[in-house]
């Protein structure tokens, strides 16, 4: 495995992990906001 392979793994892993976490948070936000009544969901 050449140096470049590890570098690519580093970048890909970092961004996919962050992206996956972002999706997880967004999905949870959507799921929860179906339960909570609208007037409590005023965001700035």
């Amino acid at each position, binding site marked *: 495995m050449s*140096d*470049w392979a*590890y*570098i*690519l*793994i*580093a*970048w890909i*892993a*970092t*961004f996919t*992990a*962050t992206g996956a*976490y*972002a999706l997880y*948070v*967004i999905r*949870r*936000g*959507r799921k*929860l*906001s*179906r*339960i*909570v*009544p*609208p*007037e*409590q*969901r*005023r*965001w*700035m």
Partner: protein
Amino acid sequence: MTTTTSRAASPVPAAPTGTGSRVTRILGIASLIGVAVLVLYGLRISKEDAQLGETIRILYMHVPTVSAAYLAFVITAVGSVMYLWKRSEFWDLLAASSAEIGVLFFALTILNGMLWGKITWGVFWRWEPRLTTTAVLFLTYLGYLAARAVPTSTRTRGTISAVIGIMAVVNIPIVHKAVDWWRGLHQEKTIFGTVDPDMKGTQLFTAYLGLTVFMLIFAWLLIHRFRVAWLAERANDVGLDAALAERRAEGTADGSANETADGSANETADSSANGPADGSANEPANESADESAGAGLGGAR
């Protein structure tokens, strides 16, 4: 973190279906553009480094993630102190959301460090000061998340996480000092420290670009994660109203069936049962959500 821009004039737009808002859309777009530019610079445009060679490209991942993680733990510590002082839900949820993101970034820091190590030392793990410190602190904050996951009342969970948040952040400098003295004696090649000072031109630009992009990502994640935590608490309160109404119904329905044998107690219970129950049923039960809902970040009433 609390962006308190004034609200758009009425008519008030329909409530968003998720935790998105104008602020997060701006931050989200900026982050995506930033990531694209960072990839371009980090992997294509910037040259390899005189000493570090190609491995400097992993540095562009490592420095931002460790900086974001430390920022996250500082926010957790501030949130914890403020929670113990002010006792308002906002600080507790902010501390918890920030800690979770911090642990994610610490995990990425360790991953990048190991990949960097594989290239430079040929092995994934060396008891090198930076890597060791990160691993120890990672475990400390894993403890924070584990303690928070234990089912208990929100008040107890808030106090316990606040205490852990403070105990853990105070440990950071101590662990740094101990590990530096302990492993610092063997001066292997180590790049982590601060950004490599003699970077020039595009390399320096890329390093700072990386830092800014990850700060944007961190802000975006924190706002969303906070709002999810906020919604989770509100979802509990929704459940609470239902439970409260049900509990009162149990009071009236039960009036006639309670176990005391004597007749007189029964009919007195029935006749006046609905009086007090109705009076206090409709007033909003979750006062606690009101008085701490002032922050711009969370939903304002």
